[in-house]
């Protein structure tokens, strides 16, 4: 008798769970899911656009956005694990060789600012001076009229898109490598937080992340701001990409279109990046 009661309860419970699951499946919106991952530089853009997209264009979609870095984003979209990969550097030929059907779309431009602690008296250096500092050839602020204190360098990790553009535009033209003593931080946020707490430090940072806790110095008299990046007077600029594998599906295409729309481009601009011109 008792055993029968227990059996009955168990069966009823299972039935309720099963019905619940089926109902949930049926009631779930038909919009589908979109996964985006990759560069932490592009992350704020995709996050904000995903929020707006779900709010305004199609509330029935679920868009999940995560970071991981440009390399991860490209690899995952290449393997078909995610729908859209985000990258803050151009595709490498090795990556195109491995996954030839990757399709990149430019969604904005980004620039890297050279930053120091706000109390630092230095506010202008040439590209060459910056390359000498980061190579470890000049190690004291006194050489630039600052205090007698060591220059504490911060860099991003190997493979980071931000490090990539910095090396390409600042270090390589002078044939230099980033010094071994530079401490590695793995995100723009970490770099900014470290500079903000260390008066003698210096780093490079995505322009979109510069705020009042750090000071961006000008290069050869050209200030690091959007106008100068657009006019290309400022020397360090790169393009941001959303990448799909082959022709994007309807949802992915619609999301990319949204990012390229006036509203999406406004997000790009509001976050401190630079709009792309859409033909």
């Amino acid at each position, binding site marked *: 008798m008792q055993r029968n009661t227990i059996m009955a309860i168990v069966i009823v419970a299972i039935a309720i769970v099963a019905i619940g699951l089926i109902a949930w499946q049926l009631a779930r919106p038909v919009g589908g899911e979109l996964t985006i991952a990759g560069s932490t530089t592009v992350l704020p853009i995709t996050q904000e656009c995903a929020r707006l997209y779900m709010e305004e264009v199609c509330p029935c979609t679920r868009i999940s956005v995560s*970071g*991981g*870095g*440009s*390399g*991860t984003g490209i*690899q995952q979209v290449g393997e078909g694990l995610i729908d859209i990969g985000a990258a803050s550097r151009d595709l*490498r030929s*090795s*990556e195109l060789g*491995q996954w030839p059907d990757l399709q990149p779309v430019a969604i904005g431009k980004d620039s890297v600012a050279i930053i120091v602690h706000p109390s630092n008296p230095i506010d202008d250096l040439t590209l060459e001076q910056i390359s000498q500092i980061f190579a470890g050839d000049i190690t004291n602020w006194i050489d630039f009229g600052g205090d007698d204190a060591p220059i*504490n360098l911060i*860099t991003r*990790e*190997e*493979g*980071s898109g931000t490090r990539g553009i910095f090396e390409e535009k600042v270090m390589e033209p002078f044939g230099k*490598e*980033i*010094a*071994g*003593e*530079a*401490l*590695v*931080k*793995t995100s723009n946020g970490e770099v900014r937080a470290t500079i903000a*707490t*260390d008066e003698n430090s210096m780093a490079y940072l995505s322009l979109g992340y510069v705020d009042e806790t750090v000071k961006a110095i000008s290069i050869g008299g050209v200030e690091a701001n959007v106008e100068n990046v657009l006019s290309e007077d400022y020397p360090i600029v790169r393009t941001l990409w959303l990448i799909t594998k082959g022709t994007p599906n309807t949802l992915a295409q619609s999301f990319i279109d949204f990012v390229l729309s006036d509203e999406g481009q406004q997000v790009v601009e509001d976050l401190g990046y630079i709009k792309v011109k859409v033909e």
Partner: protein
Amino acid sequence: MRRIKEKIIEKILLFSATSSILIVFFIIAFMFAEGWSAINLDFIFGLIWHPKTNEFGILPIIVSTIIVGVGAVLIALVIGIPCAIFLAEFAPNWVRNIIKPSVEMLVGIPSIVLGFFGLMLIVPFIRDNLGGRGECILAGWIILSIMTLPHVISISEDAIRAVPNSYREASLTLGATKWQTVRNITLPNAKSGILASLILGMGNAVGETMAVYMVIGNPNIPWIPTSILDSVRVLTSTIVMEYGYMEWGSPHQHALFAIGVVLFILVAIINLMARYAIKRGMIGR
């Protein structure tokens, strides 16, 4: 009917047991398969880690890992063992009821919180008072000793408590004071357990990732440290920093997996040493 039920339950338990072994096995197999090709003498004894030029030498990283682990355990020893002795031998019950849960609460602090604490308080303190970058071996020692402390204390305390009471009573009846008894009777008998707690703590410290990553600096190209104020890289922090941007299938990826293999072997050796210490203690008694 009953026998069938017994059999079924037995099979389910067997299945769970084998699946946990299988999971461990597959993880190890995968790691070795991905990393083995990168392990050679140049890898283990190379002095330069520079993925851009395909130079993968991890000797400075291995040395730093061991220095950071050993130092943290030594600090944990200086604080933890007296604490364990006090808890096991001297503390009245009500004191023990306060200290023990507090120590155990340390285990519950997520490593990222400890790392954040280290980055915001310990690192600036070292930078302002001792010089250097602040993010250094010393900061790693402090954070890791906090993390290993609860393990060291609780395992050592158990080891001390496991010494039979008759030993203590024999010593006390012979006129020895309580401290003499602890020093000459209890501690020598609990030695292997205490040693095991330290070795396990070391294993813990070597495998710890997030907290230590946040406070030890991680230089662009690591070197063998010459001062406790030097910034260093450890095995775990190198992996966690670089996996996000590695290219799949590149030598860099294999090198990172190889670091995982080295780390695994290092921790396995440490754990084997701890088992050996415990076993020897048991036979000795």
